[in-house]
């Protein structure tokens, strides 16, 4: 017999994160298939008002506490653990995001439920819940079964449609009044994104460079192309971490989410942490030497070639 399902609601600075609706959508479907209730829990000072937007759940617990706006993995996993004990949840869905990292493994350690990472799909087959996770930056998928038919599942962002989790209904809300333990990890302050020279979220055209650009000097080539097309250059994480471009140009999970009319990607492999931030762009054009690069599964048009063979002649042609 399967127990009910619990979703850990994620929000940042008062805004409900998309991953929350993704989880509510798939959670609703699983709950209906398994004929079990779907619950969710929200932490933070606006807990109750956030809870009122989560109509896809059958019941929402709200813990109104400003200390929990950014949930400490220690405190969060203790609260979740006692809820699991009370309600016998079989599945707990948590966002595979920077905000929630650490909660799943800690909860798994403290409860008897296993933890599954990088989950892209969950489905019920013959009454058994099955999972598909991605590995190796999206290059491999694996079907997984779990001892005991339940677990704490880290949902990879962008795996499920968020529209399926939205509902106009008002869910029943139960306020949790639990005294919080002290956390040793103290939140001090937010550091707002540095205002860069250009705001890549406002560009119609982005030329995106990845590690395939090889070195800082080659960025000029991408800059020239971007200028001709009336746009700007953005980049994947390794390019930023190398210091070749400022942080304000990073696209992806930890960077910006962009939706330009044209996203022209040069030497980017298309790891899910990157595509999360650009997959909804109007036209995605990608150059990569590797025919199996995952970027070709999000791009509309692909060019399997060396970018240094393509960009210079293309730029010349555009100039004339």
């Amino acid at each position, binding site marked *: 017999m399967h127990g009910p399902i619990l979703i850990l609601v994620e929000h940042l600075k008062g805004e409900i994160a998309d991953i929350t609706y993704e989880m509510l959508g798939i959670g609703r479907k699983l709950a209906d298939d398994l004929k079990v209730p779907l619950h969710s829990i929200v932490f933070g000072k606006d807990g109750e008002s956030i809870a009122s937007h989560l109509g896809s759940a059958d019941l929402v617990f709200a813990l109104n506490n400003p200390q929990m706006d950014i949930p400490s993995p220690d405190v969060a996993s203790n609260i979740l653990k006692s809820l699991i004990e009370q309600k016998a949840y079989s599945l707990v869905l948590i966002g595979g995001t920077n*905000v929630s990292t650490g909660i799943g493994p800690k909860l798994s*350690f403290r409860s008897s439920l296993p933890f599954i990472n990088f989950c892209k799909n969950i489905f019920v087959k013959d009454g058994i819940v099955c999972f598909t996770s*991605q*590995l190796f930056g999206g290059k491999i998928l694996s079907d997984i079964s779990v001892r005991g038919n339940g677990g704490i599942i880290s949902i990879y962002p962008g795996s499920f449609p968020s529209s399926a989790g939205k509902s106009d209904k008002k869910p029943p809300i139960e306020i949790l009044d639990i005294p919080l333990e002290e956390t040793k990890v103290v939140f001090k302050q937010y550091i707002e994104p540095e205002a860069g020279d250009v705001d890549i979220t406002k560009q119609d055209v982005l030329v995106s460079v990845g590690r395939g650009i090889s070195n800082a000097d080659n960025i000029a080539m991408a800059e020239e192309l971007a200028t001709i097309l009336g746009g700007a250059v953005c980049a994947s994480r390794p390019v930023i*971490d190398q210091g070749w471009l400022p942080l304000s140009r990073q696209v992806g999970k930890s960077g910006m989410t962009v939706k330009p009319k044209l996203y022209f990607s040069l030497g980017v492999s298309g790891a899910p942490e990157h595509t999360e931030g650009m997959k909804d762009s109007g036209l995605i054009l990608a150059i990569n030497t590797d025919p199996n690069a995952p970027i070709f599964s999000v791009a509309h048009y*692909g060019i399997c070639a060396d970018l240094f063979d393509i960009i210079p002649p293309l730029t010349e042609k555009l100039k004339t």
Partner: protein
Amino acid sequence: MDIVVFLKMVPDVIEELSIADTGKSLDTQFLRMKLNDPDDYSLEEALILKEKYGGTVTVVAMEASEVDEVLYTALAKGADRIVKIPGDWTNIQAPGIAKLLASYFSSTNHQLGTDTLVLLGSQAIDDLEGEVAPYLSEILGTPYIGVITGISLDAEKKKVNVIKEFAGGLRGEFELPLPAVIGIQAAEKPPRYVPVAKVRSIMKTAKIDIVDIIPPDIAPAISIEKMFIPEVGGKAKMLEGPPEQISSQVIELLKEIGIIRR
């Protein structure tokens, strides 16, 4: 500061990956291993901290293919001690790894002190049972935080200040007491370069400390039923031909969506 860095080798995904005949794991025959990306940064962050505040950097890795070179490179970059835990660790999962790494501290090798900072990579690309760092902090009973891109020390208070990444460029500052376990995402600076010649010469003189640890008895909680390569290129329409011809096709597309004038 007593800084301990755990390094992990992972398959290099730039290489083509193929599935073994069992259909349940990677074909290791042509697999090239490399240091997990975030680990390169956690080593760098450790070296930066040592330069700023003094102390020692101990680098610990479990045995894996090509790990020796990575350890010697760490030494060449400025680490003080390199340690290898021998064994065949192909099937061990995150909870087991965490238990094993925790034992490193419980032995007489290296006690966890009030100035110990344990750095791990935030997350590796092959970790189905996910994230060693939080598991390790559970076992060691220390505070933990992950996705960190910068650390500074308040020596008097025996605390560290850390910068954590959220999303959309938003970051947060946190404070936590030592000893602590931290998952590193990036360092303040890109990893330093060390000439191969220097690594080679260190290999001749230096020694890797071998620390034997009895493998923990933890059965994996999940099992892989099937591994497969997702359909790629399923979506993109590929433009083919010599560069000249590709350029023309690209220009046509740009005209179609109105980026350049017809």
